[in-house]
């Protein structure tokens, strides 16, 4: 066969000056090494979502710890003469139906919501992650037993269970009894998520390598598996923190939660404000906004922290 004339296909060799050869697989030492926490901080500092949510959370925490700094009005002091009055000097948010100062109640209500949300989440994460991790990592009979237990609790709606069990406490409801009840019924979701994440991680080569090193199973779980399975758990935990605050509010709304006469809470205030929605919607607006912002900022914070702590998601 005669060789056809084909321009553009002659032997071409690039100029060496234009294509310098690098050492095979040389480590790039020009960039400073990453450090997990310093980098996470560096990453977070530049994210507006983190800054906004962190500021809001600091504010809410301050409200919860020292409400006296923000309001000098007693939230329990109510004057029926002022019932549903609009804002007045010293009372920027106006008065509710009972004539209590709405601003003071929003400020003092933070403590109940934040305490319930925070502590319930902490307990639920320890309980749920523990159960889920054992089920996912050890498998076999542990998995069967713990997963069925999780399924049973998962089948009971949180609010319904809380309504029933709260009856036990009746008039002796404290913040801690609410936390206890929510924790007992709130852990299955975290357990399920953790179990799934742990099962995905436990087959990784580095887990096998740890086993081949003679690392004990429990130590492998703590040091290799859980840190790598944490990302989805953090996200679900922050979301459920919001859910717990809302559930506390729901219980108060239904009148079986915290006693609003003794412990002001956003949930109870929203509940009472519902009656005066048509006359003065502002009374509902303030506690509801406080609740929404708090929940939102915890969710945003969780999202940002997860991104920052996950070296896999980070770009160099």
């Amino acid at each position, binding site marked *: 066969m005669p060789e056809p004339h084909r321009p553009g296909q002659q032997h*071409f060799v690039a100029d060496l000056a234009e*294509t310098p050869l690098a050492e*095979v697989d040389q*480590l790039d*030492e020009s960039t400073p090494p990453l450090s*997990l926490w310093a980098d996470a901080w560096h990453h977070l500092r530049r994210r507006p979502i983190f800054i906004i949510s962190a500021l809001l959370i600091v504010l809410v925490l301050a409200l919860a710890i020292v409400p006296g700094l923000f309001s000098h009005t007693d939230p329990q002091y109510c004057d029926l003469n002022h019932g549903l009055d609009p804002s007045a000097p010293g009372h920027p948010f106006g008065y509710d139906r009972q004539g209590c100062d709405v601003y003071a109640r929003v400020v003092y209500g933070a403590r109940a919501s934040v305490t319930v949300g925070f502590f319930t989440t902490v307990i639920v994460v320890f309980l749920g992650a523990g159960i889920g991790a054992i089920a996912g990592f050890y498998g076999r009979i542990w998995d069967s037993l713990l997963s069925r237990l999780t399924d049973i609790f998962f089948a009971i709606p949180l609010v319904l269970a809380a309504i029933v069990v709260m009856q036990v406490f009746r008039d002796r409801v404290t913040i801690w009894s609410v936390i206890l009840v929510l924790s007992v019924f709130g852990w299955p979701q975290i357990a399920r998520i953790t179990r799934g994440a742990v099962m995905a991680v436990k087959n990784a080569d580095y887990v096998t390598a740890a086993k*081949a090193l*003679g690392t004990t199973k429990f130590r492998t779980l703590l040091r290799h598996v859980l840190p790598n399975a944490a990302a989805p758990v953090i996200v679900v935990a922050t979301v459920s923190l919001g859910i717990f605050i809302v559930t506390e509010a729901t219980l108060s709304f239904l009148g079986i939660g915290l006693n609003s006469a003794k412990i002001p809470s956003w949930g109870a205030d929203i509940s009472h404000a519902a009656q005066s929605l048509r006359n003065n919607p502002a009374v509902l607006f303030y506690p509801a906004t406080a609740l929404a912002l708090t929940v939102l900022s915890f969710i945003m914070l969780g999202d940002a922290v997860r991104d920052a702590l996950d070296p896999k998601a980070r770009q160099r």
Partner: protein
Amino acid sequence: MTPMVEMNLAGRSTDPNAPLVEIKKLCVSFQTSAGEVRAVRDLDLTIYPGQTVAIVGESGSGKSTTAHAIIDLLPGTGKVTSGQILFDGKDIVTASRDEIVSLRGREIGLVPQDPMSNLNPVWRIGYQVKEALLANNVTNNREAKKRVAELLAEAGLPDAASRAKQYPHEFSGGMRQRTLIAIGLAARPRLLIADEPTSALDVTVQRQILDHLGTLTRELGTAVLLITHDLGLAAERAEQLVVMYQGRVVESGPAMEILQHPQHPYTKRLVKSAPSLASRRIETAKHEGIEVTELLAQTGGEGAEHGETKDIMVVKDLTKVFTIRGGRPGASKKFTAVDDVSFAVRRGTTMALVGESGSGKTTVANIVLNLIDPTSGKIYFDGLDLSTLNKEELFSFRRRVQPVFQDPYGSLDPMFSIYRTIEEPLRTHHIGDRKSRELKVRELLDKVALPGSTMRRFPNELSGGQRQRVAVARALALDPEVVVCDEAVSALDVLVQAQILQLLNQLQSDLGLSYLFITHDLAVVRQIADEVCVMEAGKIVEAASTDEVFDHPKTDYTRALLEAIPGGSIELGIADLD
């Protein structure tokens, strides 16, 4: 040829002297958080009708990016910043969306890399091929069914009509790749882009598929752009080679000429290191009676001289039966993964266990590492019967046998710094205090040729080869006697692969290590192993010294494996490579 083919090919200009694809000064960039990354720079490439052109390069060299630019499928933020891609005289870069869509499939077909993820698991095979036909208006719905069976048969699937009714999970990797080839060629394109079409497949299947693809495209007169990392394979399959390095073309031209007289230092490096070619060169050299010590890592001879040929590990009549889910719910059946396997690893030497996927070689590795228990059979390590070890004895056994795994991206904990990764074995075995451990980590990093500053980095900052070196350092932390390398270099680029093999060789002669080297690649075996056991379907079919296996293979299976090493038909010069 069927009349259908002629009809499809009719009415197209087929002037063999007019380029089908002409790429001029192509530049492609990606926008990242770190700024603009230039993935392809000033690339020139010409493909004539019916011709096979191969782009060769390591990962990140821009070879796939070039292929994707041709069909305008650049991922994410990728963009052609300058240059032209002329397809049949028409510039694809400036073409409208509709024009490009009509080019895809009908004029330019694509065979993607990973057959496992490129077929939709919820649709039948036949439907997916039909989709390709209907999308390109090749045929109407009624005739499509017949055509699907024809296409699948043509791609080499036996019993195509009934196969078309199956789902992807019922297919093996090779069958899926054949399906993808059928889809790629469904609309009879004039150019087929094959992006690493066989990298995920076993060597013997790889050979069959490439042979078939070659015959098929030659019959149809389809031009092929083959993307590959294997220089031997490229040279064997393509008329023209384009060697890419860091986004640039470093050398291009007729395949044989480049392989026999590489000019650019990078090409020379590639020709020298590619395992398929290196193993070929060892063979050639041996026949001509020349010693090529730099290519060989075998140390068995030396050990024999020192009288140190005691078996460090003896595997006797090993059998492992797994119970797997059967056809009906609740049913189970037995699967014998390892069937009566016996071999021995001599101290200070490398024993290679070769086989294709599913041959049971990794199961053997896991049993030897005492990660899973055998169904029957014994393993003696330095005279100790592994099945009788109690907890403490097992713990000290772990110090003496360590693994290195295949996937450098999965074998290091991403949350652990390199220091913690290498220190972990020392800490687990309570060796030394904090200070002496840090010293040891530094020493280990030095052994695997990484700077001490690496210890403060995290795995995601390192390349695949560097990670694999860290994995080797971790395995060496406890001063083991045997290292089990499970496909330890399979996932690496050829140059890096050669470098790691050299490192393993160096460490073996420095530390007197014994390796159990598990691989599917006989070419690598040639470079590192003293002895070879060939496994097929759980059984050892051949066991002998490396020279013996390569020179006088006894079984057909071994012969098939040897023939499947790419580049077999190529004459190579062994001199003038510096």
